[in-house]
């Protein structure tokens, strides 16, 4: 192939846009000219494409050369690769776990913004840590129920209730 100018997959013009996607383990190469690249690309589709789909395409393109180690959420076990497949995060903690790879994506989706402005719940404050703690305990509760350790499950339920009670105090 060296030296040979590759043609567009869809017409006879020289291909200027090259991409490789892995779909269900199958490698799919695309070589397109400017015009067909725009047709396939994000710029034109932005209006009609549901945002979720746009995001999937976007994340896939972004990650083409992905030699980085995999990001994993400790709390729910989701990997960043899984997120890319479905464009849905697993739990609130995922935002912390994937903070780095999510940043460019959030910027793109939200006109460059990455810091919340707007409504804040009444009881925000020490809340974030407690929320994290709750999530962890509920995960342990799931595990306890799964291996039929009902004593532990009962104790965890009590703890969860107590912790939630603290959240009610304004």
């Amino acid at each position, binding site marked *: 192939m060296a030296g040979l100018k590759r043609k567009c997959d869809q017409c006879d013009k020289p291909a200027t846009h090259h991409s490789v996607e892995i779909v269900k383990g199958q490698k799919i190469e695309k070589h397109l000219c400017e015009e067909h690249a725009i047709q396939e690309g994000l710029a034109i589709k932005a209006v009609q494409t549901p945002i979720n789909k746009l995001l999937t395409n976007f994340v896939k393109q972004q990650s083409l050369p992905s030699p980085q180690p995999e990001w994993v959420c400790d709390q729910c076990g989701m990997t960043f690769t899984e997120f890319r497949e479905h464009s849905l995060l697993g739990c*609130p903690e995922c935002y912390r776990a994937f903070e780095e790879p999510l940043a460019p994506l959030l910027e793109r989706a939200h006109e460059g913004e990455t810091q919340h402005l707007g409504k804040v719940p009444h009881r925000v404050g020490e809340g974030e840590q407690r929320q994290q703690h709750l999530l962890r305990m509920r995960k342990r509760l799931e595990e306890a129920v799964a291996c039929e350790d009902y004593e532990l499950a009962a104790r965890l339920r009590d703890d969860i209730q107590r912790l939630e009670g603290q959240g009610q105090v304004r």
Partner: protein
Amino acid sequence: MTLRQITDHAGEWLRGVGPQSDTVISSRVRLARNLAGYPFVARASARQHHEVLDRCRAEVMGGRLGEGVLWVDLRESTPLDRQLLVERHLISRQHAGAGGALPRAVAIGADETFAIMVNEEDHLRIQSLRSGMQLDEAFNHVNRIDDLLEDRMEFAFSKRFGYLTACPTNVGTGIRVSVMMHLPALKLTGEIEKVRRAARDMHLAIRGLFGEGSEAMGDLYQVSNQTTLGKPEQEILSEFKHTVVPQIIAYEQQARRALLKQRQAQVDDKVWRAWATLTHAHVIDTEEVLAMLSHLRMGVNMGRIDTVDITTINELFLLAQPAHLQKLIGAEMDPTTRREARAKLIRQRLGQR
């Protein structure tokens, strides 16, 4: 209130009486919220789905959101009922379909001005829907519901990212502001493409109301914000109220005036042919009905025809749809029978036999 009681008339949002109702059909504001300490819906266990559903039911049905709230458990409802709720904009298509067995529900306010989907993509999707241009009313309503729920439930929130949602495109305020607009003249003149481009530049989404693709049936378009992070709720509302909607309205009015000036005969032809078709057809499909209703609606608003009022037309946009039609007739029908029943219903509602 039961589902049956809401079938034979349009919801509040289709009454066609709100401000600017000749172009703005309805205003909708939706908030996405998730319970703190649980995985998001797609990652939660069956037990957690039930727990979230039960907790939300207790709060929503506890009387604090008003009397007469209808709770519909979507696992127990028929496909026809779910379709009916989709047609009325009370649940999303996704919520209607969602892998049959997922424990999920919708709570519907007595006058249908609010609806809360539970276990859709997020634990809670709180929406308010009003007729005409009433974004403030819709926002105040969902904001009040959010405050009431927040007294008893803790929502996943971080100072950096705001309200945490399953999809990062909703994170922050979790707000989706949508205005449904009837833009027949922009469609007829081909100017709608310019509106689409302008909207894209403003980070807004424009979708056809009915149908899957980009083609808007009935010339009904839904304009919504896409940015939810780093922009306060009031700023988004303000953009819609003072810039986006007034500009699109002005553009549509300009197109209507141009049509009347340059193509009056063609306009009247379209309007009166629509009337003739709707009052005389004996077999008609949804797509044709929507196209004809759109022309008729435009004709009434431009003063070219006065044989029918806007409320009747708005109602037909809804009642001609498959699930409503079958509920009204009281029988499940195949598409062929539906086309006949639809034509008959329309003739009757338009005062013809």
